[in-house]
């Protein structure tokens, strides 16, 4: 949209006028502003969506809230900025947002070339395809000649090109900006299949009235480790955000939940819990925060498991099982370094 163009130009100008001194400390900027600017989806069930009161909710949103709670002491002090696959990186690079929490895949070029720092993996994902059962095919390898809806500016469109090229198949790409538009295009049969991260497919499918007529093909054609991202060059801020994410995972490991975190913060027999919740050691100070930063982060929306089950889990319309995203000791690969 032309708006996007204007936005890009505006960001270039913001960058240009920032005279090199800006973003010396994102932490100070956030504290001074009194709110965290968090980049999220334009809307994807389970990950970032509005409830009937218009508040943003979801798996990706929960991270923004935990971080705001850790840094500002209030999970509601977040200003959400909705970003498409294309606008998210300029928004982060120019400082329009402090952190990006939007189904973003950790890749070499984004980490190294675009100058961002990935904080870890909050969701291990992979790219899949959804199509109508009436197509009569069982595998994505039978898609020769199909029209495929894709979101532009994503790893998705790159994987897709690779997948069809290496399988010597042809396709018509139908490029689309947001998940909502892709859904509309797919339902109108502008395209035969829609491809994106498997979690996004589950989210999109959960909104179909005739979900039973659609199927996700067995092929997962890529690795999509999704996680929150910050600008490169502010290590303190990256540490704060990274350890907020880690704290949520460690909390699951140690059985610290939204319900019991305040109780446990008073002191437990487990030194690890005590360190994380600020009863022993001075972890908070090392981060430049106070001692109970992690207590607030966990109290904001619960630990990793609670957030997952609330927004994505088997009891939600998305119905995702933990799979790879289970803790390492439960057969998954979710593994956070120790808080010590």
């Amino acid at each position, binding site marked *: *949209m*032309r708006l*996007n*163009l204007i936005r*890009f*130009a505006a*960001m*270039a100008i913001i*960058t*240009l*006028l*920032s*005279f*090199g001194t800006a973003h010396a400390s994102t932490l100070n900027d956030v504290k001074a502003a009194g709110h965290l600017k968090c980049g999220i989806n334009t809307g994807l069930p389970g990950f970032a969506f509005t409830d009937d009161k218009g508040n943003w909710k979801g798996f990706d949103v929960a991270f923004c809230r935990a971080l705001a709670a850790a840094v500002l002491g209030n999970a509601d002090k977040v200003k959400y900025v909705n970003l498409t*696959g*294309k606008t998210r*990186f*300029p928004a982060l*690079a120019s400082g329009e947002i402090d952190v990006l929490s939007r189904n973003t895949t950790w890749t070499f*070029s984004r980490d190294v*070339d*675009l*100058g961002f720092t990935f904080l870890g993996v909050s969701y291990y994902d992979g790219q899949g395809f959804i199509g109508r059962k009436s*197509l009569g095919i069982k595998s994505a390898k039978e*898609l*020769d*000649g*199909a*029209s495929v809806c894709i979101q*532009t*500016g994503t790893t998705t*469109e*790159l994987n*897709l*090109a*690779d997948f*069809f*090229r290496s399988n010597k198949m042809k*396709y*018509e*790409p*139908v*490029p*689309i*900006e947001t998940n909502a*538009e892709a859904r*509309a*295009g797919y339902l*109108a*049969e*502008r395209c*035969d299949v829609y491809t994106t991260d498997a979690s996004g497919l589950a989210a999109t499918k959960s909104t179909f009235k005739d979900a039973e007529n659609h199927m996700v093909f067995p092929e997962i054609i890529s690795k999509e480790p999704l996680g929150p991202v910050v*600008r*490169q060059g502010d290590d303190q801020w990256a540490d704060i955000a990274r350890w907020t994410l880690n704290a949520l995972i460690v909390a699951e490991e140690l059985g610290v939940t939204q319900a019991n975190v305040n109780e446990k913060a008073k002191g437990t027999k487990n030194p690890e819990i005590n360190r994380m919740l600020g009863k022993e050691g001075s972890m908070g100070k090392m981060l430049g925060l106070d001692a109970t930063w992690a207590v607030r982060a966990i109290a904001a929306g619960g630990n990793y498991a609670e957030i997952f089950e609330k927004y994505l889990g088997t009891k939600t319309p998305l119905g995702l099982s933990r799979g790879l995203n289970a803790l390492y000791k439960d057969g998954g690969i979710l593994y956070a370094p120790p808080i010590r």
Partner: protein
Amino acid sequence: MNTKSLWTNERTRGLIFQILLVVGIAVFFAFIISNTITNLEKAGLASGYSFLGDTASFDINQRLIEYSSTSTYGRAIIVGGLNTIVIAILGILAATVIGFVAGILRLSKNYLISRLVTIYVEFVRNVPVLLQIIFWWVILLSLPKVRNSLSIGDSIFLNNRGIRLPSANFYEGSVLVFSALIFALIVIYFIKRWSQKRQAKTGKIFPFGYTALGLIIFLPALTFLLADQPIDFNVPTRGRFNLKGGFNVTPELVALWLALSTYTAAFISEIVRSGILSVSSGQREAASALGLKPSLIMRKIILPQALRVIIPPLTSQYLNLTKNSSLAVAIGYQDIVSIGDTVLNQSGQALEVISIFMIFYLTLSLITSAFMNWYNKRIELVER
């Protein structure tokens, strides 16, 4: 002259101020530009244009030149630029035709017609063009699905993935057919000159239209047969998912084209209307006193004079249409902005890509203006 008189002299003083202003502006921009570059380099955002040679790795559905995911970013941007030019040309042609017809009809004495045109103009002018683009797209998406494509003679198909037309294959000898076409055009040009001269001299009217049409069809057709039919058609057939073969015009292109041309035409019709009204009514009265038909009066007397008023604002409508075409992103028509944004996103080269946008649109605008200025000069009133 001493310094004092230098200062009091109005001309030199003006000159000094102008020079100071120019220097000031230059310093200001130099400062901004160098600042931008250092900042972007610091943020790792700018590193020159060499990325244009890197592999793009994504596909594009409407390509006027050879392109695949193994082509370069530079080539992807060229594909996008051509797609913008296509929509600009198609849009300008359609908007001009619709705009002129609507402008003339709005002055029609038939109340119903002029009312209808007024409603069209007022409605279309006052609804944001982005909404109109999406409106047309949604309409086109509700056309029959692929499996139920409407077809004309099983060779042209219409469905919500576009219009699929037979595409032409050219074999050896097809050059002859094109040469015949060009030859026909040259002959027509000379016939036109000759018939105009003859009409001026003797008043005899030559049936120019029919002759031209006949020549344009007959000469190439004859060559086609003589050269052993060197052109044939690749007719689309039904495939497993989509139609196969032929040439597909996407619903995105059509929606964008319909929206931009009807929107701009509404403005053009107003320009045409005011242009016509600017021609003094004495001209029309004099012409009808000579017994000319109303259609001829419009074509030969009113419009040529009105054009002088019409052309300058028309030019800016053409420029608007071209720039509005960047709204294409909304429905996924891959114009230069859509593809450029993707390149920007995948490569992170924000400033470079935006500078390419600016240079591209500036160049298109300058070319359009230059052409229209030339045309304007040509039709200027030659005073004797």
